[in-house]
Structure formats: C-alpha cells, structure tokens
C-alpha cells in the first residue's frame, strides 16, 4: 500500500496578477495529523479549495493512494472520502442535529426517510468517538462546540477518512480545544488522515505530526513537528522573527475614563437579560480586557457602550460626562422617580466626538462600507469635520492626502491605494484600515472587540503593538477578546464574563489560562464581593 493517502504534486493556481499557489507539493500520510500553516493570504484556503474540487489547478496533479484523480467538485471529493469542517459551519439552523448529519445522504426506502436507521448509525458513531450530541436538538439551540461536533459527525457519517479541519479552534474554549485535540488523535490512531489548517502554533506543537508551511503562495517546507519549535515555525511562516510575548511596561493607570454602573442590556435572542447589572471602570493608560466565551453578553455590553443598542438600566460615564443614564421606571422606586431622573442616551456621533473609538467585532458588517473605496472608509468617522468638507461638499483632495498619510503610517496594503474598493482588500488589511481610522481619531477610550480575529501572527503582533502604544499614550483601552493568549498577553486587568455577569477579575500576571478557562465556562465564580468602585 502506498505510504501517502493524498499527494498534491506541484500544484499551481493562478489568479489574474497573482499566483496563489506556486508549485506547492503536499503529501499526507495515512494516519497522520498534518498541519498546514501560513499567514492570511499565504494560499492555504486556495490549496484546500483545490483539494476539495472548488478550483482546478493550472498545473500539478492530485493523487489518491498513488493514483491520479481529478476532483471537479466537492461531490467528487466526497466520493474519494475527503471531508471538510469549514471555519464557518455549513449547518441548517432550523434542522435538528440528526437531520443535518444525514443531509444529502439520507437513507430512504422508495423516497421515504429511514430516520431510525440514520439515528442508529449516528448514535453509534457519537458513542464510539465520544462526540457528545443530542440528535434531536435544533442547531440554533446548541453551543458552537456541539455544532462543531455535528460537523465532524457529518464527515464520519459519510465514511470520510481524509478529514480537513479549517481553523477549528477559533470558536472553542480551552477545555473544548483539549477535547478536540483528543478526538483528532483518536481519529489518527484509527488510520484516518487529518489536514489541520491553523495559524496557532501551540496547537500544532500539541497535536500535529508534521507541518507544511506556506508563505506568499510558495511552499516553504514540510517539517516534523518533533524536530522543530514555535520560533522556527513562525520564522518559516512570516519570514522573520516574531515576538510571542508582547513586551510592555507596567501600566500606570490615571483618571477614570469609562465608568459603567449597573448596566443591564436585554437580549434580542432570548427573554433573559444579556448583560446583568454589570459595573466596571477603565482608567486612562490601562488595557482592561473583557474575556469570555462567545455569546455571554460581551457583544451586547459593547453595543450598549458604543450606542448600537439601548440598555434597560444603568449608567455609563465617559470622561465624567454621562453618555447613558436610564431613568428608573415609575412605580418601582417612586421616591427617585419624583426626583425626575431623566434618561440620557447620547447618540453615537456625540460619543465619538467625546473621544470614543470603536473597533467593531464584525469588520464587514459594521466597520467598513465594503462598496466604498479605502479612502472613503478611512474618513467614515470624520468626513463631517471641516478638514474634509466645506459647506457640505467633500474636499476630495484633503481626503486623498489624509488617506495616503494613513496608508503609509499604518502600512495598509491594497491593489490601487486610496481608490481600492474595500471589498477587494484582504481581511488583515481591512482590519488595519479600521485600526488606523479609529486610532488616528486620537480617542480617549478605545473599545476594541476581537481586533485580531482571523488575522495571522504578523498582523496580530502589529495590532497588539498599536493597542499598547495607545495605552502608553494615556488612552483607556477596553479590549474584548475570546483568545485567551491575547487576553493574558496584552491586558493589564482581566474581567471574565459568564452569562451576562462579571464572574471574576484577575491580574494577568497572577493567573493562568486554565484558571480563566474555568471561570469562562462557568465552573467557578469569585464569591467574594468584587470591589465596585
């Protein structure tokens, strides 16, 4: 039997002006976990799309068990037992777990669905691999971790033995990541072969047997993980040395910039409050990080801060000025109601003028107008300033000059400079554009929500430096992050949020990722009264 189960030989895939894959060779052994490492835009996705039949390469061949195969579309890939867990899950929200797993390969008798047969197989598989699921739960009601298990079961149900995982850990807690690693190992032990796309070096070191590194569309090399280390891998990936530990001086917190008291925000998806009576402060010159697993109220908390959503109770004060103050409802506290507490809800523009900057969680939904050019996006928060407009007419020259300045200063790379459509830019550079715009406003408070999501090591390093530089200039930084490494590395103070409440406050120097993980999962809670300032 051939040693390699899949061989991609000398794959070249060109797009106009760009060679996304340049003579790449990747060989996957039977029963190994093979990591595919590279920066954003290094060509990982293109290579996997070629393997999955979404693109046809200009040059090169794919061999399965030593025989040349042509993969014209994902169905062909499936016939060859190649399965893939996409980064963004491909599940039908309103279907049950079982229905999603069998979707497309439903067992039937003369067109009638044989659910019992399917259920038996799914339950068997789930027990065999320890993939805990509830076959009758609706996808929309289950956690992200379980959704991922459903995706994995989909591959197993189809008897796939070549499994591609596209950045599978991005949405998981540390404990869930450990679990996933275990599952991957058990697959490998059984002889299934795994391709694991990631840019997290820790995970590669932990689980992979070999690693292929791509850079700028070229294959830099394939190494045995046991013969290498993180520093070497990152040098291969980026082409230079990368600092892992963010070096920063101790914070010297100054005045309170942001003061949040008893903030309560209703949820849009369920009847409970998404944020429950939360109080905290951010001072000038410190980075406060709100950690937690996705969907525990961080998003709503940020929306209330930045004005995208209306809280139902509480006060928010920015630089001593109340930007949100919810007057109490009549009846409940009549004495105070008589004192006529007026509700204040400052519009977003005013908050921005007061010195709030916001790097939003979803850069394409909120951060950018994708059909606008780069320069138009760079003035999105400032176009109304006299520098950029005169009696209602946009001063194109000033906009262009300003854009060119930011592009140079923040090293935003794009095809056509200021007039590039934002849509055509890579994710990393889109994020750089937002960071440039929000930092150049010279804010007093920077609200940064997952500023490094989906970015590669080089870009992450860059954005972390920018956050710390802002802090050192005496700005308050409120960072919301799901990445524990980022939380521990960058912040000066950590707040952990679980189910809408702040369940713990930590000093990053005195805590561990594991401890934070327990709090994030709700397994622990600081019982002592947190000092509410």
């Amino acid at each position, binding site marked *: 039997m051939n040693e390699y189960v899949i061989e991609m030989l000398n794959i070249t895939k060109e*797009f*106009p*002006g*760009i*060679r*996304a894959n340049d003579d790449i060779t990747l060989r996957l052994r039977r029963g190994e976990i093979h990591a595919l490492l590279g*920066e*954003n*835009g*290094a*060509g990982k*996705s*293109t290579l996997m799309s070629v393997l999955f039949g979404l*693109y046809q390469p200009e040059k090169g061949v794919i061999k399965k068990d030593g025989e040349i195969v042509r993969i014209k579309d994902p169905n062909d890939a499936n016939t060859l037992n190649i399965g893939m867990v996409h980064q963004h899950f491909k599940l039908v929200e309103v279907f049950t777990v079982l229905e999603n797993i069998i979707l497309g390969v439903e067992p039937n008798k003369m067109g009638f669905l044989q659910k019992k047969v399917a259920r038996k197989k799914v339950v068997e598989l789930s027990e065999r691999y320890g993939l805990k699921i509830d076959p009758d739960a609706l996808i929309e009601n289950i956690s992200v971790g379980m959704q991922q298990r459903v995706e994995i079961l989909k591959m197993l149900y189809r008897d796939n033995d070549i499994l591609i995982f596209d950045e599978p850990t991005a949405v998981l807690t540390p404990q869930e990541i450990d679990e996933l690693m275990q599952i991957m190992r058990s697959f490998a032990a059984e002889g299934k072969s795994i391709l694991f796309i990631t840019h997290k070096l820790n995970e590669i070191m932990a689980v992979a047997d070999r690693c292929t590194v791509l*850079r*700028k*569309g070229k294959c830099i090399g394939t190494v045995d993980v046991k013969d290498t280390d993180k520093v070497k891998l990152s040098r291969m990936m980026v082409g230079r040395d990368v600092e892992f530990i963010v070096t920063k001086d101790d914070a010297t917190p100054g005045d309170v910039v942001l003061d949040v008291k008893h903030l309560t925000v209703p949820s849009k998806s369920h009847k409970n409050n998404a944020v429950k009576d939360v109080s905290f402060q951010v001072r000038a010159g410190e980075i406060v990080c709100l950690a937690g697993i996705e969907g525990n109220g961080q998003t709503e908390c940020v929306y209330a801060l*930045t004005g*995208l959503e209306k809280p139902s109770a509480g006060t928010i004060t920015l630089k001593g000025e109340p930007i949100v103050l919810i007057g109490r409802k009549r009846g409940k506290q009549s004495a105070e109601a008589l004192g006529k507490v007026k509700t204040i809800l400052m*519009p*977003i*523009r*005013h*908050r*921005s003028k007061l010195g709030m900057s*916001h790097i*939003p969680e979803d850069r394409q*939904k*909120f*951060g*950018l*107008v*994708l*059909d*606008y050019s780069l320069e*138009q996006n760079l003035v*999105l*928060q400032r*176009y*109304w300033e006299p520098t950029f*407009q005169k009696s*209602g*007419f*946009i001063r194109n020259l000033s906009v262009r000059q300003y854009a060119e300045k930011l*592009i140079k200063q923040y*090293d935003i*790379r*794009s*095809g*056509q*400079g*200021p*007039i*590039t459509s934002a849509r*055509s*830019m*890579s994710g*990393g*550079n889109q994020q750089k554009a937002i960071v440039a715009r929000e930092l150049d406003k010279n804010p007093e408070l920077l609200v940064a929500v997952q500023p490094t999501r989906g970015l590669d090591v080089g870009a992450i390093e860059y954005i972390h430096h920018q956050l710390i530089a802002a802090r050192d200039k005496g700005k308050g930084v409120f960072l919301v992050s799901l990445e524990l490494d980022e939380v521990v590395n960058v912040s000066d103070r950590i707040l952990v949020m679980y189910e809408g409440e702040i369940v713990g406050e930590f000093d990053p120097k005195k805590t561990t990722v594991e401890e934070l993980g327990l709090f994030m999962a709700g397994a622990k809670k600081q019982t002592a009264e947190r000092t509410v300032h």
Partner: protein
Amino acid sequence: MEAKKRRTLRIPGSTSILASLISIGVGLIVGLILLYVLNAKAAGGAFISLVTTGFRSTDKFAKMLYQAAPLIMTGLSVGFAFKTGLFNIGATGQYTVGAAFALIGAIQFQLPWYICLLLAFIGGAIWGIFPGLFKALYNVNEVITSIMFNWIAMFAVNLTINNLPMMLAKYWGGAQMDRTANLAQANPSALIPRMGLDVLMKSNYMNISIFIAIIFALISWVILSKTTFGYELKACGYNRNASIYAGINAKRNIVLSMVISGAFAGVGGGLYFLAGTGQYTLVKQLLSAGFNGIPVALLATSNPIGTIFSAFFVSYIQVGGDAMQPDFVKEIIDIIISVIIYLAAFALLTRELLARGKQRRADDAADAMDAIAPAPEAKDEVK
C-alpha cells in the same frame, strides 16, 4: 495591449456602460425574434422603423426628447432611492401627485409655469415622505407602502380634480368629460416655454423640459458624488449597519432620500403635463411613466448621468414602436417594447455577471494580495 484592456475593464463605470450596452443588444435581438414570430412578413420593416424612426425627422426626434424628460425624472427618482438602499416603486404615485399639484396651480390658481413646477416638486416630495417615515420609524417595507400610496394618490387626485369644476376641460369649452383643461386655453402662462425650439425642430412637442430634466440629473449627480449628504446616503444604502456605527442618522437619511426621490418624480409629472400636449385623464389606472422609471434607473445602474441616456433609449424605442403601426397592433408593440426594456433592465444582472468573473478572481487574489502586491507597486496604478 492586453494589459491596457484589462485596466479599462477595471474602471467600474466602464463595466456598467458595457453591461447596459450588452443588455440593450440582447433586448433588441429578442424583440426582433418576437416580431418574426408574430408577423414574419412585416417584421424586417417594422424592426427598421423601430430602431430608426427617432432619428428620421426632427419632429420624431423632438417627440423622443419630449417623452424622455419625464422619464429622466422618474428614473432619477428610482435611482436616487436605490443609491440609499430603498426601492421606490412609488414613483408613479409621486408623479401623479406632482402632476396634480402642477395642474391645480396652473388651472385653478392661474399660476405661471415655474411656480407650477415648484408645486409639482413639493407634491412629489410630500408623497415620498410617507413611505420614508414608515420605513424609518416602523421598519415597514417601503415597497408595500409605496404601492399602497400609488393607489391612494391616483384616487385622491381623481377625486380632487372631479370636485374642482374649473379643472375640467368642459369648463373651458372642451368636449371631453374626463380630462383636465387644455392648458393653452386655460392658462398659457403655465405652459413650459418653448424658446423657439418648436419652430427650430418643427414640432409642437418641443420645449425646454428636457433641459430642466438634465439640470436635475446634474443636481442629483452632484448631491450623490460630491457632498457629505450624498456620502451619508450612499453609506446607508451600501451598509446600513456601518453607517449607524459611524454615527450617521440613518432614519433621517431614509426619510430625506424618499423625499428627494419623490420630488424628482413629482417634477416629472409637472414637466409632462405642463407641456400642454397631454391632458390628465381621469381613469382608474396607474400612470406608466412612474413605472418606466424603474427600468430607466436599472439600465443606468442608478447613475444620474447614465439616467439621461437610458431615458433617451427607452423614449426612443417608444417613439419607434409607434411607427410600427399598422403592421402590428398597439398592444403587440407594447409587448415588444416591454420585452426590450425588460431585458435592457437586466443591465444590473449583466454587470453582476461581468463583475462576478472579475470579483471571483479578485476575491481569491485578495487573500494573496497583502503578501504579493507590495505597496510601491500600488502607487503606480493610482496614476
């Protein structure tokens, strides 16, 4: 050479124009096929008159311009709302109200033409407010409200004119019961000036309305592409979330956009009926000029300057269509014209198809972009 061609294609405007031309071509071919199917003997001649009549005489050319003016206005109306992410299917209602305001000003109050046009502007704007308000405050889909307001407009206008005896042709000695007065009799000062153009073009249809429409197109273009207001409007249209994030008052902009859009359509109604060649007829039927604004705007991919030319095209085909009689009956001609316009309005789809090929390549390329295209290269391309 190859590189040059590629660069031309990269300019968004050129893709739009190319898409519009392809769509027109496809529309005409399908129209020709239809003609052959329906009446093979006369098809060739009819097609030739369809595509050449507009240029055959100054008279026909003038008629084309005369019909184009209100089309430009309704096209601008629809296009302006499109740019803000709204589908103003209510242009016909706003057009009707604009026409009624203008005619009441002209006949009932004996006002001069420019005041009447201003009234048309106001009437259309008022009719645009409602769908805008419903959308902004209650998030009611503007398509539903504007369709309802189309019918409300028509019946309200019919009711009003019926109850103003002075408005009707009969009052001024006309024979028809169901028509507004002939402006030449009722108030010649309300007629849009002809400035000798009618003599020059040897046509009764010719007046300055086409220039007024072009001026509005320029105004619309300036608003959309030169002002902060236009910047905000388009930001709302392209990505409402991002505009809210940037502190733009999206609700205000929705209402304003509908008001301006309605005002454009209203002026269209004013221009058409103040020309004096058409009289408002009290029928239970929505005026088609408003709906024709939709393909005009689509064909122009909502670009105000493009709207001028696409309105010319639609008007040209209509004038040519009239010349296909008697070989083809009026209804058949309408069908053919609709088919051509319908396919021509696929410009957006065609552009999408043209762009998708490019976009797919660009998207995939974008990943590799930051690594492969270094900044200095980018500078070249700007120049």
